[in-house]
């Protein structure tokens, strides 16, 4: 395909294209900003081609430019890990830009906002290429700032402003944590480039602190509980294709950061690190989907789901670290492949679902599930593609979501090889949590698809919706096709990840393409195996056979009639199930413990014509305990310290004098 040696130059061209269209749009907004998306598509295609070549050949390219800080320069490196994440990122950018082409030039595109899209794309690619701490943090911050500007696109809306404010704070906390982490790794000698860091050895206490800082830094961007609070506000506030990028792709860049630092730079994995990551992953998977079930805003639901899927990825990463620490590199490769396959899958189906919700928002102007319904009749194309996304994200065969879930379970099955008994008991617990979150995810998407597209329309906006434009449908179609292909031919993806595994862990999964009938087998054909293509063919053949037989022997008569509804049909669409009523059984079972959910019913006195009211309260304990309470404390302390603003001159002098004396005492005692 492309000569690997020329890859870095080609990546530079791609980045220039991204940056260039951002610049052009700033300089000559009225005439050129509409071309932003076309240039982005071209740049993304180029970058995609380069990344695929590098990933499949497993080459490593690095270079150093005399820019940036004088002592280190700007180091860039393109290896299999960067290339894999580059494929994920650029594919997402490609489909999001395709969707963007379909946006209405007058009402939806804005010369103030679209340049940030291109800059965002460039920044994400730059993070993947960075090979020293400075360029990494610079690109990371650029990514945060450009996406913040995109979140603020509809700044007239108070909700968007609040979301952007919270996002900026969390992003800053994350960057500070990463700064500490890199500082810890570089040490007093100040070797900030990754090559030096890779060679250095840290003592265990420092490594533990660095790991905690890295988890805070990358975890806040990825959306791990309890650092996820900005996600459900920021992702919905941005325009739909940007939400697709933020949820589907930017979170993966954060995962890249974690994998790069923990697997590559920190070197020796420890069992405690793996247990921490496992527990964080399990908690995120479970709590993320429970939060999602309680939402009735389509985009917030999808954003909370991202938290769940990042949890699943972290579970795979934690397992990989545990196996690596116990000296089983092939099993570590299995777990890492499961995690990275899920990275790929999630970027596909989350982008598909966000683009679909964008199409719904565009057609009806509504995001709230309680105001939609019956869209399958008005928007047939969108509904089929959204259905594919729902089936994929619920981890159902034969689509791709099931494959990464199956691989994770296979890794969990290998847990008896771990030596520590608490870890051996922890892993099946996490497995049970994973199964629970998968079942809850299926429930959540039955709710999302069922309330939005099925049933009868609940408002006029839903009754009069129109199908979306062909660019959006093409973008969604490409993603849906990719979901199907990844589910039918998972062996190709696993083999593509093999060079990556060899580089990071020293071993890789057995070559899948030699397996019989294109199935995948994690350990060897004698043990478990899964064949997506075969299952798919089986289902098609069974369904076809059934349809054929039924056509031959059954009656063909079909009659349309009003719904049976047990003999009490109701014309009003308000009597059908709403989103919160669908979630009620699950809320009754899990909501009491997790959200202190309470239902209040106000019945009017007999004879009164007033309506009865039903009302559910949920409390977000994580927000209350970890954010609201400390913020309250800080504010009250700050108010106390306010007194210092209004001292007399003599008091200020006393203050200065006291501080000076304390300083001198400290110096005396210290030396």
């Amino acid at each position: 395909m492309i000569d690997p040696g020329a890859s870095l130059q080609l990546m530079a061209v791609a980045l220039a294209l991204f940056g260039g269209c951002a610049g052009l749009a700033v300089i000559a907004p009225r005439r050129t900003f509409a071309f932003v998306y076309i240039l982005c598509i071209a740049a993304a295609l180029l970058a995609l081609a380069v990344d695929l070549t590098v990933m499949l050949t497993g080459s490593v390219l690095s270079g150093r430019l005399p820019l940036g800080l004088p002592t280190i320069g700007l180091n860039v490196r393109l290896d299999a890990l960067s290339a894999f994440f580059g494929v994920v990122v650029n594919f997402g950018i490609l489909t999001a830009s395709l969707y963007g082409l379909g946006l209405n030039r007058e009402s939806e595109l804005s010369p103030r906002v679209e340049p940030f899209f291109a800059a965002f794309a460039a920044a994400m690619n730059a993070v993947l290429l960075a090979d020293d701490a400075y360029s990494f943090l610079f690109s990371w911050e650029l990514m945060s700032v450009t996406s913040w500007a995109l979140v603020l696109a509809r700044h007239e809306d108070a909700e968007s402003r609040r979301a952007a404010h919270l996002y900026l704070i969390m992003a800053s906390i994350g960057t500070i944590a990463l700064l500490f982490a890199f500082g810890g790794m570089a040490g007093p000698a100040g070797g900030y480039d990754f090559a030096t860091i890779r060679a250095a050895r840290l003592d265990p206490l420092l490594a533990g602190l660095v790991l905690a800082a890295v988890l805070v830094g990358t975890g806040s961007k990825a959306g791990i509980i309890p650092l996820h609070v900005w996600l459900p506000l920021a992702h919905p506030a941005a325009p739909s294709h940007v939400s697709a990028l933020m949820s589907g792709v930017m979170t993966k860049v954060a995962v890249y950061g974690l994998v790069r630092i923990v697997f590559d730079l920190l070197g020796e994995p420890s069992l405690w690190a793996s247990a921490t990551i496992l527990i964080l992953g399990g908690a995120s998977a479970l709590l993320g989907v429970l939060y999602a079930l309680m939402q009735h805003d389509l985009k917030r639901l999808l954003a909370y789901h991202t938290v769940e899927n990042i949890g699943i990825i972290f579970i795979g990463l934690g397992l990989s670290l545990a196996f690596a620490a116990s000296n089983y590199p092939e099993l570590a490769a299995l777990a890492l492949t499961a995690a990275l396959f899920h990275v790929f899958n999630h970027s596909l189906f989350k982008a598909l679902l966000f683009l679909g919700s964008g199409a719904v928002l565009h057609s009806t102007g509504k995001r709230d599930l309680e105001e939609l319904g019956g869209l399958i009749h008005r928007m047939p194309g969108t509904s089929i593609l959204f259905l594919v996304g729902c089936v994929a994200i619920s981890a159902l065969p034969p689509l791709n979501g099931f494959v990464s879930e199956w691989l994770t379970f296979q890794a969990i099955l290998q847990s008896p090889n771990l030596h520590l008994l608490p870890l051996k008991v922890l892993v099946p617990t996490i497995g049970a949590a994973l199964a629970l979150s998968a079942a809850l995810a299926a429930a959540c998407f039955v709710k999302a698809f069922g309330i939005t597209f099925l049933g009868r329309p609940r408002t006029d906006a839903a009754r009069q919706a129109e199908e979306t434009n062909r660019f959006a449908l093409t973008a969604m179609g490409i993603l849906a096709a990719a979901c199907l292909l990844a589910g039918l031919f998972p062996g190709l993806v696993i083999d593509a990840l093999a060079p990556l595994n060899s580089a990071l862990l020293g071993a890789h999964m057995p070559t899948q393409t030699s397996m019989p009938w294109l199935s995948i087998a994690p350990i060897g054909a004698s043990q478990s195996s899964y064949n997506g293509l075969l299952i798919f063919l089986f289902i098609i053949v069974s369904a076809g056979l059934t349809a054929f037989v039924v056509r031959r022997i059954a009656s063909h008569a079909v009659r349309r009639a009003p719904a049976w509804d047990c003999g009490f049909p109701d014309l009003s669409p308000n009597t059908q199930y709403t989103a919160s009523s669908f979630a009620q059984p699950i809320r009754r079972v899990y909501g009491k413990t997790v959200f202190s959910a309470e239902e209040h019913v106000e019945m009017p006195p007999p004879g009164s014509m007033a309506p009865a009211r039903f009302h559910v309260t949920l409390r977000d304990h994580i927000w209350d305990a970890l954010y609201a309470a400390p913020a309250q404390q800080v504010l009250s302390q700050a108010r106390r310290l306010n007194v210092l603003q209004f001292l007399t001159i003599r008091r200020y002098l006393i203050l200065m004098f006291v501080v000076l004396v304390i300083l001198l005492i400290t110096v005396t005692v210290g030396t």
Partner: protein
Amino acid sequence: MLPSLTSFLGQGMQMVLVLVLAPGIAGLTRIVKARLMRRRGPPLLQPYHDLHKLIRKEAIIAESASWLFRVAPYLIFAFSWVAAALVPTFATGLMFSWTGDVIVIIALLGSARFFQTLAGMDVGTAFGGIGSSREVMIATLAEPAMLLVVLNLALAAGSSRLPAIADHFVAQPLAIRISLALALMSLVIVALAENARIPVDNPATHLELTMVHEAMVLEYSGRHLAMIEAASQLKLVMYISLIVCLFLPFGIATVNDGFLAWIAGFAIFAGKLSLTAILLGVWEVSIAKMRVFRVSEFLSVAFIFAFLAIMLSFLTQEVLR
């Protein structure tokens, strides 16, 4: 891995076999329940007659139903049939039995349930919503327990492929193992929940507010209803053959054993199925249906048993190392 003709033939026979036996098992359970309640009950072959009747009838479709409503029965039936065909019944080593990974089988049933619940919501009535929301709640409670049971067995046998697990347990000497007993009880509870049997759901109820599974299919009629009924009967047979294959695997032939061994295997399998159907009938008559929110406590028992089974097997492993 070239398929031999015998294994291909065997696989085809198994697919037809489960399809043919499924309504009979449902009929057997019904007749046992009726006799225990001192009624005569319908004839044993009544479910076949019912399916035949439904297929010949006109399908009435609600005005607000979409294409999903008409396609869903085919998909549900196909998913259930493929899952049932992958569980070894009278012989292991059949042509596609190596794709019979337990996790895949559970996930295929999950797909069937996904489309079933969507179909329940399609017409836009309140009863469909009741059925779908309760069904997904029960599924979320049953799946973790099921997975832990699978984990337990796969940890013991070293693989999650059904034939491998079956072979492992056939080769074991007869011994009392509490972790297996707990896993069996857990799997039985999960099977009761997934097949909408008492005490989780009453398949014979006509009160809509007590329905779970029946409420989702309230709007179906004609050939669509026939396919859905057949699919739920297939699911029951699949669960029974799963339990039998994992915990009572004696008598299963291998693909190369010859035709006589196959006949014997088939007879033993039919015997095990009938016995389980009779036991199910006796159980359903002896116990009352629980109210919906008590079901979560019942299923948590399954989860506890499965988890205890894993911990006890870890304990044995460590202590006897």
